[in-house]
C-alpha cells in the first residue's frame, strides 16, 4: 500500500515501504507551465528536508525543488531527460523526479496528507 504526502513547497512523496518517490505536485506544474528541463540529484546523495534536491526549468524560469525528507537517493527518473513534459502530463505519476530510501519514518509525520494539502491550496486560491 502506497500513500502520498506533500510539503508546503508543493513537492510530494509517494511512500511505498521504505522507498519514497519524490516529485512536484500537479498544482506546481500548473503554476510553472511547460517544463523543458529537470536537473535531478545524483544517485547516492543524502538529502535533508528542505535542502535543494533539484531544479525544474519551465519556459519562463528556473525553480528549486526541495527534499521532503532525509534519505539516500537510490534512483532518478530516466524518462525526464528525454521528455521533461512528463512533469506537465503526469506530475504525480510518470513525472516523478527521484526515489529516496527513507532514513527516518518519523519525518513523514511532519508532511501534509492529501486533505491538509488540499486545504493549503484552497487557502491560497
Amino acid at each position, binding site marked *: 500500500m502506497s500513500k502520498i504526502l506533500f510539503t508546503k513547497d508543493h513537492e510530494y512523496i509517494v511512500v511505498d515501504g521504505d522507498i519514497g518517490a519524490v516529485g512536484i505536485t500537479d498544482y506546481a506544474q500548473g503554476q510553472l*507551465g*511547460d517544463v*523543458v*528541463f529537470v*536537473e535531478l540529484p545524483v544517485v547516492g546523495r543524502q538529502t535533508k528536508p528542505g535542502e535543494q534536491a533539484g*531544479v525544474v*526549468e519551465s*519556459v*519562463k*524560469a*528556473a525553480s528549486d525543488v526541495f527534499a521532503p525528507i532525509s534519505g539516500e537517493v537510490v534512483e532518478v527518473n530516466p524518462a525526464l*531527460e528525454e521528455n*521533461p513534459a512528463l512533469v506537465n502530463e503526469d506530475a504525480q505519476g510518470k513525472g516523478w523526479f527521484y526515489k529516496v530510501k527513507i532514513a527516518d519514518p518519523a519525518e513523514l509525520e511532519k508532511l501534509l496528507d492529501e486533505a491538509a494539502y488540499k486545504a493549503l491550496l484552497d487557502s491560497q486560491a
Partner: protein
Amino acid sequence: MNALPAPTPLHALHLGLGGRMVPFAGYDLPVNYPAGIIAEHNWTRENAGLFDVSHMGQAFLIGPGAAAALETLLPGDLLGLPARKIRYSQFTNADGGILDDLMVTKLSEAGDRLFLIVNAACKAQDFAHIQKNLPDLDLDIATHRALLALQGPKAAVALERHVHGVSALKFMEQQDFVWRGEILFISRSGYTGEDGFEISVPADYASDLAETLLAEEEVKAVGLGARDSLRLEAGLCLYGHDIDTTTSPIEAGLNWSISKRRRAEGGFPGADRIRWELSDGLKRLRVGLILDGKAPAREGAEIADASGEIVGRVTSGGFSPSLGKPIAMGYVPPRFAAPGTPLSLIVRGKPLSAKVVAFPFVPNRYHR
C-alpha cells in the same frame, strides 16, 4: 512602481480567455492562456497569434522639421525615410548608451508628422526626454489608443477579411484604414520574426477588434511568455535586458539601423563612441548562442572561453520551442563573436557547452 498594475482595454477579454495575469511594466497582462507558452509560440509560427501590446507608448510628434529635430536624439535616418515607412531606432545618451529603442513612422513626406512607438517601461521617461529636448514640437501622447499585434504566416489572410487592402502593405510600411468607422493605424511589422501587423486602435474599439480577429480560425490569443520566446528566436533585443544605457547600438549589432549619412554626419548623442566602435574600437558584441545540452541558461549566466576565463554574460536566454533546445544571447569580446566559436555558459556553477551562431536563430519571414 507601487501602484497596482493598470488594466489594458483588453483586460476583460484576457480574463475571459483564462489568461494567467502578471504585472508587467505597470500593466496587468497575460503571460499565457490555458494552451501554454509552447503551444502559443508554435501557433504563432504556423498560423497567427494575437498579442495585446497596449502597454507600449504611442505618440505623435508634430511640427515643422520634426524629422530633423528627432534625428538629434537618435541615430536613425528619418530625413531619408519615405512617407508611410517605418524606421527602427534607439534614443541614445551622451555616452552612446541606449535609453530606449523605438519605431518611428513618417506620416508625411515633409517629415512634420511622426508616429512613435516606445517601450512601456520607458515611455514616461522617453516622452519627458522628447519634451525637454524638442520643446518647439508638439508631442501628442495617444493614451486613448490600444495596440494589438497580429503575427504569423496567416496574419495577412485573416486581417484582410476585415480590413481590405491591408495585405498590400510591405514590411515596415504603414497606412491608415477605416474599420467600423474608426481609424486604425496599421503597420506591417512586429516582434516575432514572422510576417504580421501592429494595429493601433481607439481603446473603446480594441475589444471588438480583438474578438473579431479571434473569431477567425487562423487566430489565437498569445501571451507575453511566447512573445518573449518568439522575439528571442528572432534575435531581437529586449530593452532593459539585451540593451540598456551601458550598451551601444554597435555593441548590440544594430549597425544596420544607422545609415551611412548618420554615421558620417553624427549629430546625435554618443555619435563619437559609435564612430569609434565602427572603426576599430569595439570592445564587445552581442552574439547568439545555442547550447549543446537541454538545460537553459538564463539572463545573468556568465560566459566562459575554452580556458574557463569569464568573457561575458548572458542577457537573455531560454528554451527555443522552434529548435527544441536552449538558446541565449549575450555580450563577448569581438574575438569570440565568430559563428562556430565554442563557449561555455555557467549555470548553477557548472559550465554548459554552447557555440556562437549568427542571428536570427530561426529565419525571419518578413513580407518584403
